[in-house]
């Protein structure tokens, strides 16, 4: 017998701390999905409808600039969420997300989640806490990336002798 969606969700670190009834509600908005390597999960400018929870494979967050090759900003893998823009207006994707390998994911309908959260503020709060935790982790990782840790820093002062 195939695993239920609630079981699949429980297996994800993101939802591990969610109460069972909240989990059942989320499961009602979710379905399984898959992408071939190279396929886009979502594209810049498109309507943001879905939260993807990666179960296997790797997804690259990319941005494109005319005349330049696409730039990979971040690579996400099993346990990571792809797609936050369904959470707040104007519900529009800002980046591309491309499957680097074949990807298996749970797709959760954003509008469905929002309406259930609106109807049950307690549920909405625990969902938001869960999502905020993930966002915070991502923000901190992004800040670290911004530091350009391994880049060449300014050169030694005139007359300096070290290095």
């Amino acid at each position, binding site marked *: 017998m195939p695993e239920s969606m609630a079981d699949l969700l429980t297996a994800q670190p993101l939802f591990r701390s969610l109460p069972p009834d909240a989990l059942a509600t989320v499961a009602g908005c979710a379905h399984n999905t898959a992408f071939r390597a190279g396929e886009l999960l979502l594209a810049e400018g498109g309507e943001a409808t879905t939260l993807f929870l990666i179960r296997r494979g790797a997804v690259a967050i990319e941005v494109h600039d005319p005349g330049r090759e696409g730039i990979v*900003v971040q690579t996400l893998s099993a346990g990571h969420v792809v797609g936050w823009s369904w959470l707040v207006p104007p519900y529009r994707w800002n980046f591309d997300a491309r499957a680097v390998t074949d990807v298996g994911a749970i797709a959760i309908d954003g509008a469905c989640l929002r309406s259930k959260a609106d109807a049950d503020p307690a549920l909405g709060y625990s969902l938001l806490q869960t999502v905020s935790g993930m966002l915070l982790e991502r923000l901190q990782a992004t800040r*670290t990336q911004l530091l350009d840790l391994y880049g060449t820093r300014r050169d030694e002062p005139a007359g300096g002798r070290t290095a």
Partner: protein
Amino acid sequence: MTVACGTPASAPHPLTPALWRVTGRKKETADVTTLTLSPEAGVVPGFGHGQFHMLTAFGIGEAAVSIASAPGEAVGGLAHSIRDVGPVTHALCEAPAGSIVGVRGPFGRGWDIGELPGALPSGTDHVVVAGGIGLAPLRGAVHDLSERHAHDAGRLFVLVGARSPDQIVFADELDAWRANGVHVEVSVDAAPAGWHGTVGVVTALLPKAPFDPVRTVALVCGPEIMMRFVAAALADRGVAPDRIQISLERNMQCGCGLCGHCQLGPLLVCRDGPVVSYGGPLPELLRERRR
């Protein structure tokens, strides 16, 4: 008051370099060159994983460079990977094969990888996390640990962070390590499309490494911020802080505790480090503003 006559006449003067010849050169990345150096006097002095040499470019000056070779592979000279960031390192990076550089050392305390039999319980995992040129002082330890773990129950994970794919040092050796059973993961801060590896901070690689935190020894080297974040993430994962070793960078001039430049609170980094345990007061010392 009398001072015992310290240095026997035969001992090398700690402040005077020996002459070593450049016997090999390899451009690792746009700004990192690996020099293979062999002593003119013939005998390579003993050294430990993660120790460093002071290299002199005659007429330019001196810089601290870690030894990238493992003690067991010293035949044919010692590898020193140098990043071109100033006049001295530039001159060293440009030193042609056959030329002479000055070498003092080895200095400092290096990685403790439990070389003595029974020093670590069988089945101990090692996690090596390196950022940028930080892989150089770890290369020898990876070399020897991969040999050891090929024959015991412990596993070796090597997690490498770099600015971009073309900035990965020892890139051609990573596959050899993989072939030797080492679990190697690489992440870069930014990559062009077509890069199928990971993009993101090196800490993001930790979840991909299924080491057992309670029987893990971690060796971390890279920019100080990166080491703090990695050490914190390892500790969160359950690795005891005193089993997390990091290699500090401070201004090393004499290399042997005499010149006072590498002060870090109670530590003289060249003498008490560069490799120190993340346990004890160290996180606090590194957190101090402008310590």
